[in-house]
């Protein structure tokens, strides 16, 4: 449900940085533990970008896998869910990756003929 608002944010940030130039490509980094569904972002992107410099831009989403570090023994543990258990038995895990929600880069058109 919140993906629509998030996508509106994405579009307005990109419009701001594009300076009126046509945007060809938008690259996002979305963590797998961020509670954001890439499919929903893609669905909303087509609607939100209509009538802006982002219209028909290619959306690329890089999904970042979840990674936590155990507070007890320091082991790094890959996570599918935003919680888990270390082999040492500890539940105290600090997430170090997988919660990203970022616009990594954009590609704008600069014609030179």
């Amino acid at each position: 449900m919140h993906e629509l608002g998030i996508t509106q944010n994405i579009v307005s940030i990109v419009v701001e940085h594009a300076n009126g130039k046509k945007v060809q490509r938008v690259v996002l980094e979305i963590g797998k533990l961020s509670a954001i569904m890439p499919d929903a972002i893609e669905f909303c992107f087509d609607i939100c970008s209509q009538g802006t410099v982002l219209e028909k831009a290619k959306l690329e989403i890089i999904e970042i896998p979840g990674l936590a570090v155990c507070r007890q023994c320091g082991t790094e543990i890959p996570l599918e869910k935003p919680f888990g258990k270390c082999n040492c038995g500890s539940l105290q895990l600090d997430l170090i990756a997988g919660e990203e929600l970022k616009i990594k880069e954009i590609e704008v058109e600069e014609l030179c003929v």
Partner: protein
Amino acid sequence: MCVTCGCSDDNGKITYPQKSEAVAVESHRHEHYHTHTLPDGTAIAHSHNHEKVDDASLHAKIHNTTISLEQEILAKNDLIAAQNRGWFKGRNILALNLMSSPGSGKTTLLTRTINDLKNKLPISVIEGDQETINDAKKIEATGCKVVQINTGTGCHLDALMVEKGLQKLNPNLDSVVAIENVGNLVCPALFDLGEQAKVVILSITEGEDKPIKYPHIFRASNIMIITKIDLLPYLQFDVEKCIEYARKVNSDIQIFIVSAITGEGLDDWYRWLEMQVKN
């Protein structure tokens, strides 16, 4: 033919008249120089060689500029949330972001808390709902300051709504501002409002596995309040199991178990509130 300069695609030949031998020359080795004017007025000159340029559209593509943004999508919200946090801190106000599914008893717990602490701790409320001012009216009946924010189709409060709400609310110094978020266990977890603590409320009519069903919100929260504990004899709710699930998701979560009807367990909750404001 090259569309940029019109030269032939075929490799040229140079014949040495003395020896009558032809030597192949890659005519496309030459480069095209041209200039661009950047938005800030600086002119840059550069060249293309022919190795990759086949037509005009490809040429245009080469000139696409990739801008590295590394911009947090929620940066604007987080900035306003940080301002709110400073605003609260400067006034020694404890701001709580109360989150739960609809019908967990947030408003009932809140009205009871306000009434019980009336002479000790002033509490004011920002009510978030999609529609109606019903909850604000219930809170208003206690005599405390309240503003209602209707989000319409929005499924959560954001920092800007809270900032605007605060201007109208004008809460007292050394008090508590309870921000009752829209009933929803998904979206509110993502949006920082500038609160000091996120409080997730779970009623025992909902089932003990909510913490692992909606791990994001339980992980993001500092406090979990289990409500409607007076209904325990009528329901199959395993309190121990619920606590175990909550700690599995968030080992640091602080837990209160209360009934806003009988008053059971509320003293611990009140003590915690008072301690936070004193600190």
